[in-house]
């Protein structure tokens, strides 16, 4: 370890340079450095999953076999795409990167409550990721859902892969636990619950879901291993088991996990819009309440993935009605974000463009979700391309756009540099147009009855598939462009970031860019709301 305090001017010392060398990073318990450890590791899987997606889209560009000669390879690719993107990229996505970086800074703490546990979580992630990568040597072809009895009978390394997901689950649980304790215990003096930025609230709701729901998927995955190794007979009907049980257990985790992915993105948008509108977040209390409501209701809607899976008609009706309850808090959020812009002083920096795009994409994701909550209509749409398009609007349009928005928003704080605004706006345009061009045709394919997970399709679907593939290339180009811009300016950028380039009120902007190792010279005392913008007007608040 080469730990030498800088002899230069004091201001030059920050968390990035106060220790140097690879080992100083791999052994660092600094939450800001752990953010970067996660960021680089998840990006590997974002790239891997993205390449798998582009290969699939290329195959689907024309009917009949084209670049992929056999269906097995295609099935492996969509499994890889799903497993990489869900378990290795989006679930740890915002919480483990931006959550790690921002939670202590936003609440005025020196670090998270358990810094060593935090580093251990990352090592668990790496361990799980390596096992997952190893499993791809004899690649799994089950889809990321691991449905039995296909997963318990297919002759690929499913056991290794689900064990990887099991380990990753522990990483997620420990991170969630750490954040819950941190937010409860380490808030700066004066930072009451109702003064917390909405990103903290969203992270808190996310952490609760991570801690409560993840053990269930861990159990389920162990049962899959038991079934494969010992023939336990839990999901195998010939031994009195039931494959539908597997679906229940799987979705009990995997529906809430959608909120693990998307709630932090809601938080990010809730931070960006007030800053660039110079207005307080409209209806702060309701925004907070709606995050908690989504987290709570999210636990009892899982079987809406199973309306045609052989569950009783009664439970289908029950889960449909509960699912509609999620629509209400989601709608409230959107109304509040848009109202925040009313009479603002709006500037269109890249984070704001992403936030506005998010509002549009999430409107599409939300309204198409309504179709899938409706029983009679979901029977038609279940497992068609409509569902594929819907959840990509939710996960990519929501969680991934949220992550990219956040990376731009807090880039000056994280790196101490400014990214290139022109390049990032061009990248945004490519990414946004490409994304819609990819998935709008897929909604139409779903309307025409095109089933998902199809290696080949009848020729009547070809035109829409071709358009979708062209969109996917543009989308992939946009992401590459955006991320290279960030990476390039982080490494070689000349423009130094000031302490508070957006003139934000929240705590993380009140310290140096980049912050020192312990974040603040002295623990700040909070005396106002995080969105205290604008001039008071009579009757303007409540």
């Amino acid at each position, binding site marked *: 370890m080469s730990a030498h305090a800088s002899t230069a001017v004091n201001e030059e010392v920050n968390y990035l340079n106060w220790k140097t060398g690879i080992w100083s990073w791999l052994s660092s318990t600094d939450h800001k450095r752990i953010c970067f450890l996660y960021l680089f590791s998840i990006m590997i899987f974002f790239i891997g999953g993205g390449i798998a997606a582009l290969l699939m889209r290329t195959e689907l560009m024309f009917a009949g076999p084209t670049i992929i000669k056999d269906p097995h390879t295609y099935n492996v690719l969509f499994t890889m795409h799903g497993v990489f993107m869900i378990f290795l990229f989006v679930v740890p996505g915002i919480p483990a990167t931006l959550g790690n970086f921002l939670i202590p800074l936003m609440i005025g703490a020196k670090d998270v409550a358990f810094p060593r546990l935090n580093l251990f979580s990352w090592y668990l992630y790496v361990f799980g990721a390596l096992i997952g990568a190893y499993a791809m040597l004899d690649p799994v072809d089950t889809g990321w859902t691991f449905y039995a009895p296909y997963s318990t009978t297919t002759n690929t390394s499913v056991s290794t892969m689900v064990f990887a997901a099991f380990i990753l689950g522990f990483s997620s649980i420990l991170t969630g636990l750490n954040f819950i304790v941190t937010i409860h215990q380490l808030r700066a003096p004066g930072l009451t619950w109702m003064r917390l930025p909405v990103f903290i609230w969203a992270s808190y709701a996310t952490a609760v879901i991570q801690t409560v729901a993840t053990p269930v998927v861990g159990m389920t995955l162990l049962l899959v291993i038991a079934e494969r190794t010992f023939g336990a007979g839990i999901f195998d009907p010939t031994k009195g088991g039931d494959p539908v049980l597997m679906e229940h257990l799987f979705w009990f985790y995997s529906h809430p996990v959608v909120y693990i992915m998307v709630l932090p993105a809601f938080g990010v948008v809730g931070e960006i819009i007030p800053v660039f509108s110079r207005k307080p977040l409209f209806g702060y209390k309701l925004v907070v309440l709606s995050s908690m409501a989504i987290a709570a209701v999210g636990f009892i809607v899982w079987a809406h993935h199973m309306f045609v899976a052989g569950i009783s008609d009664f439970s289908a009706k029950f889960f449909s009605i509960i699912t509609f309850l999620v629509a209400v808090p989601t709608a409230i959020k959107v109304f509040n974000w848009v109202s925040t812009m009313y009479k603002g002083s*709006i500037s269109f920096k890249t984070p704001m463009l992403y936030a506005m795009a998010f509002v549009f994409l999430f409107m599409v994701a939300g309204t198409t979700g309504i179709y899938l909550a409706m029983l009679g209509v979901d029977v038609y749409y279940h497992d068609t391309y409509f569902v594929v398009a819907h959840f990509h609007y939710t996960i990519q349009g929501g969680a991934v756009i949220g992550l990219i928005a956040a990376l731009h928003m807090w880039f000056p704080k994280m790196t101490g540099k400014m990214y290139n605004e022109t390049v990032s706006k061009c990248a945004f345009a490519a990414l946004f147009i490409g994304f819609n061009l990819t998935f709008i045709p897929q909604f139409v394919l779903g309307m025409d009855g095109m089933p998902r997970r199809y290696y080949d399709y009848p020729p009547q679907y070809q035109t829409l598939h071709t358009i979708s593939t062209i969109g996917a290339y543009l989308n992939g180009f946009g992401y590459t462009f955006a991320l290279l811009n960030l990476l390039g300016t982080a490494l070689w950028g000349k423009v130094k970031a000031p302490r508070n380039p957006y003139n934000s009120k929240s705590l993380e902007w009140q310290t140096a860019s980049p912050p020192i190792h312990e974040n603040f010279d002295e623990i700040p005392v909070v005396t106002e709301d995080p969105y205290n913008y604008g001039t008071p007007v009579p009757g303007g608040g409540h």
Partner: protein
Amino acid sequence: MLGLLGEQGSDFAYKVDFAHDIVTIISVICTVAIVGVMLYFAVIYRQRDGQDHETPKIEGNNTLEIIWTVFPTLVCIWVAWLGYDAFVDLRTPPAGAMEVNVTGRKWAWDFTYKNGKKTTGELVVPVDEPVKLVMTSKDTLHSFFVPVMRTKMDVIPGRYTHEWFRPIKTGDFQVFCTEYCGNEHSRMQTRLKVLPRAEFERWLADDSEARKLASLKPSDRGKELYVSKQCVTCHSLDGTPRVGPSWLKIFGKEGKLADGTTYKADENYIKESILYPQAKAVAGYPPMGMPSYQGQLSDDDITGLIEFMKTIDGTTKVELAPAAPKKSAASTAGMSPAQRGEALVKDSGNLCATCHSIDGSKMVGPSFKGLYGRKEKLSDGSEILVDEAYIKESIYKPQAKIVEGYGPVMPAMYEGKLTDENVADIIEYLKTLK
């Protein structure tokens, strides 16, 4: 209303579509309104000259919050009810619905009727009658999706699930498997054929073929199928190569594939080649020459064919079916020439549909759609008008004038099989395919 989900084939389809259209209208209005307001705010409240202007400190408005909590809740309740109402219809088969047992397996659907009739690869039902499918799976999860009927249900090993519909029109409709089930998931498609009541009854009662086949020993069954499934057209028994390799002493034979690797014709290779002919095509034969028999042959049929192959020693002979047209006069009486032609084209014994589509898509041969009256370029470079004379010649002597871009793969088997009158009917039918 909007017709976004395409053709409606069942009596409850309109209800599903109505619910779908209502949500579409609400969704589009809400999205346009909210994004519109956002963009409007973005334009009129934009920062000018890079300078912040003064903003009011508005932290919320209780009245608005109540409105946009209550309003979406009410809309959701209404929409949930629409979906619920359609679902109740989808899940409630009327008493006395005709039941068909459906078995899903990797990767085909088997259908069993109450009178014992079994089919694979085609579900035949009467129009205007409720049909209830009682479904189970032999191996993994599958799902039976009939888009035109708007219904779908997972098919699960170890238990029975059901779905039902009442077809409101006759015709052939697509059925997909929509629960991922492994390698050939995307090819696990089948056909739903809706027939007029009388025709369905006739079809259901006609079990002669199945009974006869079931009573034969496997190699004889294979021999029957060799003729009835038209293997004979492309595969000789005496060593002559035709469109495909001869079956003379084929079992156990080794050779080269089109991609340069070698093959050995054992049971598994033969089965694969019957189901997925393009997977391992023998070198020297047109790769797109053979259609898949997926869904047309049962496992017992394939075993029969393999057993038959083992017996082919050069002395084996088969009797070709009599050349007379299959349709009896009674069943075609009262039909127009074009209708008779359509029946001939669609008759599986004639195999036209194997290579010629009627929807314009390119298969082994040119599509029938818009064929009549078109100018086609031939493989020798000349041009020809597709008229009565050319079509007749092409049916009787397929190799005489071949359209450019297609191989010389059509069997010369129709002379004697189809009468001049049959050909005239077919031409009348082709004229209707604009």
